[in-house]
């Protein structure tokens, strides 16, 4: 469970970092291709979302405020899935998902499948939180509190 938590954290850290290291306009172009947000909200999301992915991913890896980090990641994944589903339903001509910025990209059905798997894993981690918390900063504090 701990390894799964760290693995999911790494996925989000890589995804956020890839987007943050390139110009935000590239991610903005991908957001615009999903035709969900209007100006200037698309720009706001293009700038903020990669930071959310990076920070929630780091928090999940470190096990810092783990329940909140995992809930945040679940919310992000749910939003990604909803956006991809509407793009598939509307047959939008999107060639790449933009999931990993300049690093790696998948067609929409593959993206939906991978997001669904990720969603199930995150939901499972939240349900089994006491086992997820090993090797975490949260656990360190819990132990300290118990010793006191």
């Amino acid at each position, binding site marked *: 469970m701990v390894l799964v938590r760290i693995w999911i954290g790494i996925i989000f850290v890589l995804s956020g970092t890839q987007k943050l*290291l390139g110009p935000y306009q590239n991610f903005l172009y991908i957001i615009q291709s999903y035709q969900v947000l209007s100006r200037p909200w698309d720009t706001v999301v293009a700038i903020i979302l990669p930071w959310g992915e990076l920070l929630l991913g780091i928090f999940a890896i470190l096990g810092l405020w783990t329940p909140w980090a995992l809930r945040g990641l679940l919310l992000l994944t749910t939003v990604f899935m909803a956006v991809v589903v509407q793009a598939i339903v509307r047959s939008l001509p999107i060639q790449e998902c933009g999931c990993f910025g300049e690093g790696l990209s998948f067609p929409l059905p593959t993206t939906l499948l991978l997001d669904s798997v990720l969603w199930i894993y995150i939901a499972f981690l939240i349900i089994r939180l006491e086992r997820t918390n090993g090797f975490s900063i949260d656990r360190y504090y819990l132990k300290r509190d118990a010793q006191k």
Partner: protein
Amino acid sequence: MKYFLCQTMGQDPKNKKFIALAVVLFCIAVIYGLKLAKGSDPVSSGSATLPRAKGNPQAPLKIVEYMDFQCPACARGAFFLDDLLKNKPDEVYMEVRYFPLEGNHRHALRSARYAECAAQQGKFWDVAHLLFKRQSEWKDLINADPVFEEITKSVQLDMNKLDVCLANEATTDALVKDKQEGQSRGVRSTPTYFVNEKMVVGSNSLEEELMDFFGRVKH
């Protein structure tokens, strides 16, 4: 960082907030440090692209475009810019750089080679216009050369010179150089424009950016 985390952890559990803050600040520092180290060259005009430039070099609006002839959004952008240059010839200057996306577009490199060879005979804009105008005719073909040859003949290129140019490795080198230069500036997809150095991706964003620009100029 590790030292800081250990120090903070050794104090009151309430200091989790400080750890979280330290993590956030650390991430911001790393990302901006990496971006700074990576750097980005300013977009400047070059003599090599002169045959692929048009408009007034002293114009207040300078556009550098990275394009792929097989990309539909590039075609839309090109027609939009053609109209703009017709309506405001003194206010706009533009240059084209190649950014063939061979992974997605089968004829991206080949069409760019034809355009570059046309540029060497001073006919870049004629060929570029026809490549975009007839894009739907050739983009799905297995061999698009017959259409490209028809286009180059229709603008009266010297076909012997064209054949020599197409076979010349230096032609490909020019395309690769443009693409590498674009990548170093963060270009990833087409069409990507630098409007007075500001990066704009996609023809819709270009239209919005230019509306903003001319709105600002009016006021």
